[in-house]
């Protein structure tokens, strides 16, 4: 079965430091990949997505992610974290079977980011 793993449940970084959140997926083909962010008390907001093409994708709020097929990874990065980036981050995969795409997403467990002043 397809799965998504976010190995880090909780990460703390200092404001201005760089950030990398890890995401690994288990899937035979190349899935569609997403990162969402959930600020406290809010729903999820799409940060970026990868469907095909350039393996380095840019998103909103200065985030980027790199798809590495050999490592089955889609890690999220930001060069300089701001205090407002404190939130929970979810990696998700849309399993595509041939031409079949139900529109469903499989989510990882989430990583909570804390930003120290």
């Amino acid at each position: 079965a397809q799965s998504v793993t976010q190995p880090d449940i909780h990460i703390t970084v200092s404001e201005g430091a760089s950030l990398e959140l890890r995401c690994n997926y288990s899937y035979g083909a190349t899935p569609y990949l997403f990162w969402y962010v959930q600020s406290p008390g809010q729903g999820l907001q799409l940060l970026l997505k990868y469907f095909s093409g350039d393996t380095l994708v840019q998103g909103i709020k200065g985030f980027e992610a790199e798809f590495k097929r050999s490592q089955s990874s889609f890690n999220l990065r930001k060069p300089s974290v701001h205090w407002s980036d404190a939130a929970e981050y979810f990696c998700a995969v849309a399993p595509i079977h041939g031409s079949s795409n139900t529109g469903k997403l499989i989510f990882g467990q989430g990583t909570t980011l804390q930003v120290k002043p």
Partner: protein
Amino acid sequence: DVKVTQSSRYLVKRTGEKVFLECVQDMDHENMFWYRQDPGLGLRLIYFSYDVKMKEKGDIPEGYSVSREKKERFSLILESASTNQTSMYLCASSFRGARKNIQYFGAGTRLSVL
């Protein structure tokens, strides 16, 4: 902007009550989803609907049912609420077709069952 509205941010119910969680989207999306979010477990799909009156079970449908009588509205029903259904519930919607996997989320309903 896409808007997905969940009728309640917080709900407190008693064990055995019938509970309705409502979700409305204003973007004419074909697909709608109900998730449950619990710490350490991420989001788990309860049910989804790809058209009016159409529904499919997700990964954890037990104890829940859904209703989609109109395209814009998707309701989650707890027939007889139990304490293990205390959780955050998130509704999402998306287009069918090439953009179908981009889901837009509501703010969530935090349900406590006492």
